[in-house]
């Protein structure tokens, strides 16, 4: 890529001869995109198909043909009745971690971002520097140190031990600060002050509303991050009643790892844990402001 672009930029200025060869080429981008889409979707489609099969069919029927012998319902029943319905509990736990952690961390990041973006007070520069530095710290690698510290105070193995370490995301605070600076005009805040609005009132009814697009994006990023997190619950939790889906499915795989007879349960579990989130995501796609992320990192 280096050689390509550097030579390209060198020649770009003098090389302007007309080259009209698009006729046959316009199909190429579409083809590339279709191949990419197939690569991303086919595994999910295959898991849908595999989930319709009983264990015997899984090993005997053609891989890309669904079975209609009722295997789907058998698998779902087996999954949801496994170990007294613990799978439902895992799904609920994942929702608690991701929604609870997502909302709380968005509030924390939004408040801090607004304060750092719209006010300067003693220490505000230092706090911001600390946060920028913390963006560099790899959160996942902190999971084990976090466990060691919490274990010292006997605070592991509960909901809080999974939620608390994920409440503060330096990157989310950074995004909110940048967004608050750009989207909450000083003039509006000044006008509200002249009208006698308190600082709190200005934050609540002006600032937080103007920051809504950033807050939604931060919430979705945090939601996904927490929902997908594996290592943190893996080290913090050893009571399977508190497992999130990721950890539960992993455990299921470990237990059934040796026995091909259990594969269909795991496959059903994989399907059930993909579908709701995929639907949620695709339907919320409009509200994402990913340009915030790409614009936000020009530190």
């Amino acid at each position, binding site marked *: 890529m280096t050689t390509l672009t550097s030579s390209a930029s060198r020649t770009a200025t003098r090389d302007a001869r007309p080259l009209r060869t698009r006729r046959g080429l*316009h199909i190429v981008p579409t083809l590339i995109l279709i191949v990419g889409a197939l690569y991303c979707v086919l595994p999910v489609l295959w898991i849908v198909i595999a989930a319709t099969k009983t264990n015997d069919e899984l090993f005997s029927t053609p891989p890309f043909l669904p079975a209609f012998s009722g295997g789907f319902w058998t698998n779902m029943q087996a999954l949801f009745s496994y170990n007294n319905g613990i799978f439902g509990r895992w799904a609920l736990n994942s929702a608690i971690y991701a929604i609870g952690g997502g909302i709380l961390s968005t509030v924390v990041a939004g408040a801090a971002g607004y304060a750092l973006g719209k006010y300067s007070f003693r220490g505000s520069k230092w706090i911001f520097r600390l946060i920028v530095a913390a963006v560099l710290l790899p959160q996942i690698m902190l999971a084990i140190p976090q466990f060691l510290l919490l274990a010292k105070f006997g605070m592991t193995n509960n909901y809080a031990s999974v939620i608390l370490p994920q409440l503060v995301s330096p990157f989310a605070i950074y995004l909110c600060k940048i967004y608050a600076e750009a989207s909450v005009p000083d003039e509006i805040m000044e006008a509200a002050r002249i009208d006698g609005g308190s600082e709190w009132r200005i934050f609540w009814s002006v600032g937080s509303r103007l920051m809504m697009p950033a807050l939604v994006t931060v919430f979705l990023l945090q939601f996904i991050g927490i929902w997908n997190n594996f290592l943190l619950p893996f080290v913090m939790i050893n009571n399977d009643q508190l497992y999130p889906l990721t950890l539960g499915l992993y455990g299921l795989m470990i237990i059934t790892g040796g026995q091909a007879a259990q594969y269909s349960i795991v496959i059903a579990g994989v399907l059930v844990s993909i579908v709701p989130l995929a639907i949620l995501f695709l339907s919320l796609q409009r509200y994402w402001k990913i340009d915030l992320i790409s614009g936000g990192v020009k530190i």
Partner: protein
Amino acid sequence: MAVIEATTTPAPAPTQPVRPRRRRGSLLPIVLVVPAVVLLLLFTIAPAVYAVVLSFLQVKVGGGLLGGGDTVEVFVGLANYFTTLADPEFWASLGRMLIVAVIGVPLTIFFATLFALCLDAKKARLVGFTRLAIFLPYAVPGVVASLLWGFMYLPATSPIGGQVINYFGSTGIFFSVANVAVWGVVGFNMVILYTAVRSLPKDLFEAAELDGASELQIALRVKLPLIAPAITMVALFSVIGALQLFNEPTTLKPLANAISSTWVPLMRVYTDAFVNNSIYEGAATSFILIIMTVAATVLVNVIGRRFARRETK
């Protein structure tokens, strides 16, 4: 712990705010920023500091179990670091991680860029559908993606020729793990790059078109150099992601014999801390990894900036 308190001092003293330009002594900004600062100190800074402290200690006499009451912790200086750095298995795990990264990161960046440019191509069709489809795996947790691909690789169930191709062989495993990772992140990176392309001023392309540049030339010679900073950022995220490789190999481990319990550095830290109960060595390895990640982050950033600067000239 003393060190933690030292880092607390830059936090604001709650009584005296004020800076001339701003509001007279409102407490609100401090109230708003305090939760974030406290959480950051307690759950990011303190664990990192605690890991450093542990990394200089060792337990003498006895097994040294987690929270074991009567064992004595003694200061051993850099001994734990030397143990880790002298262990060939540590370097081997780092090497395996690098192999996965060398396969996965360039592929992620190449395809994310390719898809982003194709999405922006004038003649492209099915743009909405393909963009959603390529983004879809981002909503699939790494563990679930690994299980999904695990069954795709597994000879007994494979729809992609696992009966013939050994996806879990000693060479194949690197590609298999890298593939799961690429599958998960390529769409997210594509969306970031696509957004970057979309935000470029349109008249640039029109000017190039008037000059007779083809669609391909515009993509390679105008758009690509202009999104170089965004590509740098994507590369940065990918490198950090590669260093934190854990979920995919851990989940594939029950299916693939080629994956050991210390296959990548982070798995080694886990094994040290939870299986071998040697939290002190685990802490030292953790800290080495954190340093490496920060160093890699800074390095990629510097290289990327230099690269971007040269492009804009």
